[in-house]
C-alpha cells in the first residue's frame, strides 16, 4: 500500500480511529500488528509469510543467544539469523544476479552453461525489514540489548507499517521500548504529524513525480546519446527526484508514526548542503549509513587497525552498501565511488584539514558545491540501466561526449529542473544547521498555515499517478 494512494487514506483513517478508541493497550497493539500485515499484504498477500518467518526466527534466535554464555553457541545462533535473513534476501533479490554472473564466469573459461530463468518477484521492502530484524539478533549477540519481553512487541517492531517497506531502518532499542506503555499522540503531536505527512507527500507527489521525474525519465530513457546540457539536467533532475522521493517517504513515515504517538528517527538532514562525503553520509539515509557503520564497518575494524585497513573497510562497507540498493554492478560502482570519495576525503582531511582556508565561508560553499557535483556523478551509475549508458552520460557531463547528442528536454522541462534544483539547494543550504521543528516554531502561525495549505492544494491538483516510491524496489 502506497502512502500516496486513496487506499492508504482510508486505511490510516481506520487505524487512527481504532488507536484512539477506548481499548486496552494490548488490543491496540494487536490492531497495529494486524494493520501492518494488511498494509504489506495489500501488495502481495503471500509475502506476509516472509515477515512471519523473519519474526519467528529472530525471536527465537535472540532468546537462545541471550540464554547462553558459550561463545560457540552464541555464534551458531546468530549465524542462523544471518543465514535466514540474508538467505531470503539472496534468494529473492540476488538470485538472478548471481546466476547471471556465474554464467558469465563459466562462459569466460569456455564452459557453455545457460542459467535457468529466475522469474522471481521481489518482495517489496525486503532489504529494509531483513536488516531491521538482523539488527535485533546482532544487538543481542553483541550484548547491546536484551531480547524483547513480548512476542507481540517484537512482531510489531519487525512489521510496524509506517517504516516497514522503506525505512527509516529502526533499531530495536529505539522502537520496542515505545510499545511497552500505552501511547497516544497529543493534539499538537497529531497536528505536527499531519504536517509531516503533508510535507512528505508534497516532496513525493509534487517535486519528485510531478516536477522532476519527467526530465529524468526522458534523459535516462533516451534512445540516443544526449548532449552536455541534457545529460546534466537529467541527472540534476534525478538527484532531486530521488531525494524528494525517499526523504518524502521518510518524512511521511515519521509523521504517520507520530500521529499514532510513536517516534521514529530522522533519516535525512538536507544532504545536498553536505560539505564532504562523511558529512553527506551523516545526512543521507542516516538509518542505513549508521546500520552499515555499526554492523559492518566497526566489526570489520573501523579505523582502529591502521590507515590502509581503514581505507579497505570503508571501501568494503560502501561496496556492500551499493549492492544493498540493487542486484546490479552499476549499484556496486555507485557504492565504490562513494567509498573512493570517502577515502580521498579522509586523506585530504588528515593532511590539510587544519588549513586556514578550510574554515572560510567561501571555501566551504565551494566544497559543498564540489560535493554536490561529485554526488551527481554517482547518481548516473545509480540511475543508468547499463554501464554503456552510464559511461555515455558521464562523458557528456564531463564535456567529453562526441558533441552530436540529441536534445530531449523541452524548454518547460529545462526551466522546471533548473528552478526546482536551485530552490532545493537554497533550502538545503538554509537548513544545513537548522532543524525543521525550530524553523517552523520561529515562523508566524498564519504563514505556517498558508504554506501548509499551499502544499495540500498542490498535492491534490498535481493528481499523483500513484507511482511507487523508488526505494521500495530495494
Amino acid at each position, binding site marked *: 500500500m502506497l502512502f500516496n494512494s486513496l487506499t492508504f487514506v482510508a486505511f490510516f483513517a481506520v487505524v487512527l480511529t481504532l488507536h484512539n478508541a477506548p481499548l486496552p493497550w494490548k488490543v491496540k497493539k494487536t490492531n497495529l500488528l494486524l494493520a501492518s500485515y494488511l498494509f504489506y499484504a495489500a501488495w502481495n498477500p503471500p509475502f506476509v509469510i516472509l515477515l512471519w518467518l523473519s519474526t519467528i526466527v529472530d525471536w527465537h534466535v535472540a532468546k537462545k543467544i541471550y540464554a547462553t554464555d558459550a561463545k560457540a553457541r552464541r555464534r551458531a545462533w546468530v549465524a542462523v539469523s544471518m543465514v535466514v535473513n540474508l538467505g531470503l534476501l539472496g534468494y529473492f533479490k540476488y538470485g538472478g544476479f548471481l546466476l547471471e554472473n556465474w554464467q558469465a564466469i563459466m562462459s569466460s573459461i569456455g564452459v557453455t552453461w545457460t542459467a535457468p530463468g529466475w522469474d522471481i518477484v521481489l518482495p517489496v521492502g525486503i532489504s529494509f525489514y531483513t536488516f531491521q530484524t538482523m539488527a535485533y539478533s546482532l544487538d543481542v549477540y553483541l550484548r547491546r540489548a536484551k531480547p524483547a519481553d513480548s512476542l507481540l512487541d517484537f512482531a510489531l517492531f519487525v512489521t510496524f507499517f509506517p517504516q516497514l517497506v522503506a525505512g527509516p531502518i529502526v533499531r530495536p532499542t529505539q522502537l520496542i521500548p515505545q510499545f511497552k506503555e500505552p501511547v497516544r499522540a497529543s493534539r499538537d503531536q497529531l497536528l505536527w504529524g499531519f504536517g509531516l505527512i503533508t510535507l512528505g507527500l508534497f516532496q513525493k507527489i509534487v517535486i519528485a513525480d510531478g516536477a522532476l521525474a519527467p526530465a529524468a525519465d526522458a534523459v535516462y530513457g533516451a534512445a540516443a546519446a544526449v548532449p552536455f546540457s541534457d545529460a546534466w539536467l537529467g541527472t540534476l533532475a534525478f538527484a532531486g527526484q530521488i531525494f524528494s522521493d525517499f526523504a518524502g517517504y521518510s518524512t511521511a513515515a515519521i509523521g504517520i508514526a507520530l500521529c499514532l504517538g510513536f517516534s521514529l528517527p530522522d533519516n535525512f538532514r538536507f544532504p545536498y548542503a553536505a560539505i564532504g562525503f562523511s558529512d553527506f553520509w551523516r545526512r543521507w539515509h542516516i538509518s542505513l549509513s549508521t546500520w552499515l557503520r555499526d554492523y559492518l564497518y566497526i566489526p570489520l575494524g573501523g579505523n582502529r587497525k591502521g590507515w590502509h585497513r581503514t581505507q579497505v573497510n570503508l571501501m568494503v562497507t560502501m561496496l556492500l552498501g551499493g549492492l544493498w540498493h540493487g542486484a546490479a554492478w552499476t549499484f556496486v560502482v555507485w557504492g565504490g565511488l562513494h567509498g573512493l570519495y570517502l577515502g580521498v576525503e579522509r586523506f585530504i582531511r588528515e593532511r590539510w584539514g587544519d588549513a586556514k582556508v578550510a574554515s572560510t565561508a567561501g571555501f566551504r560553499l565551494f566544497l559543498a558545491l564540489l560535493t554536490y557535483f561529485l554526488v551527481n556523478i554517482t547518481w548516473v551509475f545509480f540511475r543508468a540501466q547499463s554501464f554503456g549508458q552510464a559511461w555515455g552520460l558521464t562523458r557528456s557531463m564531463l564535456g567529453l561526449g562526441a558533441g552530436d547528442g540529441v*536534445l530531449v528536454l523541452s524548454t518547460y522541462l529545462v526551466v522546471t529542473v533548473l528552478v526546482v534544483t536551485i530552490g532545493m539547494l537554497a533550502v538545503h543550504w538554509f537548513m544545513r544547521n537548522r532543524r525543521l521543528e525550530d524553523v517552523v516554531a520561529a515562523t508566524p502561525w498564519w504563514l505556517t498555515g498558508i504554506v501548509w495549505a499551499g502544499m495540500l492544494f498542490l498535492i491534490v491538483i498535481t493528481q499523483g499517478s500513484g507511482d511507487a516510491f523508488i526505494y521500495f524496489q530495494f
Partner: protein
Amino acid sequence: MRWPRVAIVAAVLAVAGLGAWEAYWRVAQQYEASYRNSDGQWAEARRRVDRSEPNATVFIGSSRTQFDIDLDVWEEETGVHGIQLALEGSNAIPILTHIADDEDFSGLLVVGITPPLVFLPGIGLRADAVPHYYDETPSQWLGNKLSYPLETRLAFYNIDTKLFTVLARQSWWPERPGLPWQQPEVRKIENMRRDRQADLWDRVENDPEFNASVTGTWQEILENLPPPPPPEVAQAAFEALLEQVAADVAKIRARGGEVVFIRPPSSDWFREFERQASPREMVWESIVGAAGAVGVHSEDYPELSDVRTPEWSHISAQDKTGWTRALVRILRERMAEQGIQRPEMGT
C-alpha cells in the same frame, strides 16, 4: 506554535483553493466530472470476461470502437450489455491475441480496426493496461474503487487537468532550438462512463478553437510518424500479423466463440491520410480475409458512413445511437448470410 489555528487556516485555504480550481475547470473550461479511463477501470471490465460472463460480447479496438458504439443501444438491440475493452491509441491485434488466449472466453468478439494503428509494434499508448490486469494489487483494486466517487464528482480530477500537464502545454514556453519533434499531448475529448463507454465531448463539436486544436494534434502526430521499415521487412511483419489474426480467430471459434471485424468511420484529412498510408485493399481486406470472418466497413453502408465526426476520427455523441443500431442490424444480416449462429445477435 498554535497548531489548531495553523491547521484551521491550512484546511480553510486548501478547501478554498480547491473550490476555486474546480470552479475554473467547470465554468471557464466547461469540464464535466467523468471517469478517468484508468488501467484499473480497464482491468475491472476485463475481469467480467473471467468471472461471470464467459459468453459476453466484448469490444476491442482503438478509441473509435470505444466512442462510436453505444452500449445501451447495443443492449436494447441484442439484450447483452457488451464489455468495452477498446483502448485509445492502441492496436487491437495484441488484445485479440490476449482474449484468444483466455480459455474463459467463448462469446462474441467485435474487433474495431483503425488501419494506421495495426502497424504499431505492440499495443501502443495503453500498453500498461494488460499488465495491470494481471498484476493489480489488492491496494490498487481498492484505490480504484475509492477513486470512482471522486472521478464522477470533481471535474478537475482528470488526467487532462493535472498541474504539470497543464503547465507543460502552455504556449508561453518558447521552442528550444535544436529539439527534435515531440509528440503533442492528446487533450481530453470525451466523457467516460463506468462501463468504459466514451462519448465525444460537446466542446470538441461546439468550440471551433478547441476542435481545431484536436484536429491539429491528429495531423501533427500522423505527419510525424516514424518512416516505415523497408518494404520486405514491412511485408514480413504484416504477413506475421495476418497469421496471428487467423490463429487467434481459430482459437476463439474452437471454443464456440465468434469474431467479427468493424471499421468505424473517419473523415476529412484523417480519412485521406488513412487511404494513402494504409489502403483498404491492403490492410482491411487482408485482415478480414485472413480471419475468414464477417467484416463491416463503414464506407460500404451509407447509414454507417453518413455520420458526423467532428474531429475527423470519432462519431458525434448524438449520432452514435443511430450508428450502433445500424451496425447491429448489418452485422446480423452479414452473420446470417454466412450462417453464423449467435444467440446474442439473434442469428
